[in-house]
């Protein structure tokens, strides 16, 4: 057995560079069949470094690795802990699922620009892995930009004026967000002369410049993550993108910004713990949960419901800031995992409904249960997990968050989590009610756009996985605690 640090260095390098090189190969080598096969191969192959990295982390705790032996400040350092590991696993599982789905779907869509789509998805993947592994502020900025530059074009693949307007709005928000973030990085460097997260000491970050830096970075990342008051681009962009792309944008890309917020607030800035500020931010999160859910209840299109649900679910991340305990940390990561699986399942299933019913208008879904049973089942199962009914993964994540709020004596967050769950159940069951209604006139089963069995099984499997996470809480909790910024206080999990 090699040293954990060496092993981790190899794994991290592979996780970033294999998708990057595969993207070049897909772009340069013609042939759809080759592209599809390569994507699947990469997705399956990357489980090897993931498993090895997990073992290395289990042996040695959170790990650092400096590329080429050049350490901070000039070198590029990579880093992984339980949170990074969870996000890497989620990314890989979702990309495997999306590639399976896309390969099957593209066989039915000969006009779709498959090569460019696959190359962009692979680049996005490389950027996400890099983001989750990065350990310094500037490197995170670069990775964030790679993610933006590959995520926005994915929206344009659904052609037409609406898609372009949505992509344009997304790009403007992302542009502003990245400039704000970079300004924050510059302010921190001017103040401390440091960039690496581990060398930034909380004591050095107490002055007014550091507080300003945190404020502009939070604003920038909130734009990228579409947190509530600056969420306007998300529902439009996610609803109009091709369904596999919507799935990735909702389940991973929006989460990348939230991930970074958590890293900053609980990492180098953990000393800024003014109760009013933290409670206020969590209150913004709750406002996002309520607003997103209420909007989801009002949507007339299925993908609009699912996209607004993302705005709501992202709000839970902010609850971690005032709770700041190991249980809350594990709860938020668990929430991120189950939401990622459930949201991908919902978007892929919604894609099937659009193909077969010809539209995703909710009132045209009546009678859809006759010919779309599989896809509807995926939506229902994923929705149950989103709503947090036991025994699903969503329940575990919310339960830990509730436990953490009660333990911290902040019962009002527990109430908000309950309300968020109820509202989620509301908008999911509203979709199902529409789909199970008797159609007013007998609709012929449309079969001009075929949905292959793979396209049904992938979302069903993801939804089942999201529910299955409800049985693995005790198993995964120690992994999520690796390198957590909180000591184990003997909480519930």
């Amino acid at each position, binding site marked *: 057995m090699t040293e954990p640090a060496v092993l981790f260095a190899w794994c991290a390098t592979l996780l970033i560079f294999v998708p990057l090189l595969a993207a070049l190969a897909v772009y340069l080598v013609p042939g759809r069949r080759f592209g599809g096969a390569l994507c699947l191969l990469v997705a399956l192959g990357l489980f090897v470094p993931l498993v090895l990295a997990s073992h290395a982390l289990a042996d040695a705790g959170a790990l650092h690795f400096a590329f080429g032996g050049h350490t901070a400040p000039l070198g590029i350092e990579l880093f992984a802990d339980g949170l990074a590991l969870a996000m890497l696993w989620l990314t890989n599982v979702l990309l495997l699922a999306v590639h399976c789905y896309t390969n099957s779907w593209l066989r039915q869509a000969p006009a779709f620009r498959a090569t460019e789509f696959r190359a962009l998805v692979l680049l996005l993947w490389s950027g996400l892995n890099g983001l989750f592994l990065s350990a310094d502020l500037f490197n995170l900025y670069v990775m964030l930009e790679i993610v933006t530059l590959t995520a926005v074009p994915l929206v344009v693949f659904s052609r037409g004026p609406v898609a372009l307007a949505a992509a344009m709005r997304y790009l403007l928000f992302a542009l502003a967000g990245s400039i704000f973030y970079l300004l924050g990085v510059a302010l921190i*460097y001017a103040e401390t002369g440091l960039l690496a997260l581990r060398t930034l000491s909380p004591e050095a970050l107490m002055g007014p410049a550091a507080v300003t830096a945190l404020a502009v970075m939070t604003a920038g990342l909130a734009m990228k993550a579409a947190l509530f008051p600056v969420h306007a681009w998300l529902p439009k962009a996610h609803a109009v993108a091709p369904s596999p792309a919507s799935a990735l944008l909702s389940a991973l890309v929006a989460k990348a910004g939230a991930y970074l917020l958590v890293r900053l607030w609980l990492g180098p800035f953990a000393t800024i713990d003014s109760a009013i500020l933290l409670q206020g931010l969590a209150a913004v999160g709750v406002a996002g949960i309520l607003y997103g859910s209420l909007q989801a209840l009002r949507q007339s299109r299925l993908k609009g419901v699912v996209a607004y649900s993302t705005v709501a679910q992202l709000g839970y991340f902010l609850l971690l800031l005032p709770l700041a305990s190991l249980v809350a940390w594990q709860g938020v990561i668990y929430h991120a995992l189950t939401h990622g699986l459930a949201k991908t399942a919902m978007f892929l299933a919604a894609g099937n409904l659009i193909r077969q019913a010809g539209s995703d208008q909710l009132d045209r879904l009546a009678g859809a249960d006759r010919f779309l049973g599989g896809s509807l089942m995926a939506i229902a199962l994923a929705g149950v997990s989103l709503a947090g009914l036991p025994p699903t993964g969503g329940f575990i994540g919310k339960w830990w968050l509730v436990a953490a709020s009660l333990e911290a004596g902040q019962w009002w967050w527990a109430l908000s989590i309950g309300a968020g769950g109820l509202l989620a159940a509301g908008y999911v069951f509203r979709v199902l009610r529409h789909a199970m209604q008797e159609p007013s006139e007998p609709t012929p089963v449309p079969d001009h756009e075929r949905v292959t069995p793979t396209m049904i099984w992938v979302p069903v499997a993801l939804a089942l996985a999201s529910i299955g996470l409800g049985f693995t809480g005790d198993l995964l909790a120690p992994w999520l605690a690796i390198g957590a910024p909180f000591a184990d206080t003997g909480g519930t999990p």
Partner: protein
Amino acid sequence: MNLVYALTAGLLFAIGLYGLLARSELIHRLLAANVMSSAVFLYLILIATAPAGDPDPVPQAMVLTGIVIAVSLTAFALALLRYFQALNARRALEDEADGDD
């Protein structure tokens, strides 16, 4: 002297932010975003200068990388803008027109 540069950077950032928020024409908003990034780059160059001795290379490396990123983002945004205008025959995003219908 440093104060002049710092104030210039602050002013440019404010002008850019105003343009991004207040203008509706997309090309103006894009240019405003570019003015904002230039302000941040100017600030980074400013913190790289040392009163005596060699300048700090780290912010300079950050500016170089930042310029590359800004150029790619702007190039992509311009391409998107042309495509948008060709399809939409308008130059601004209208919030009501492409609402959730």
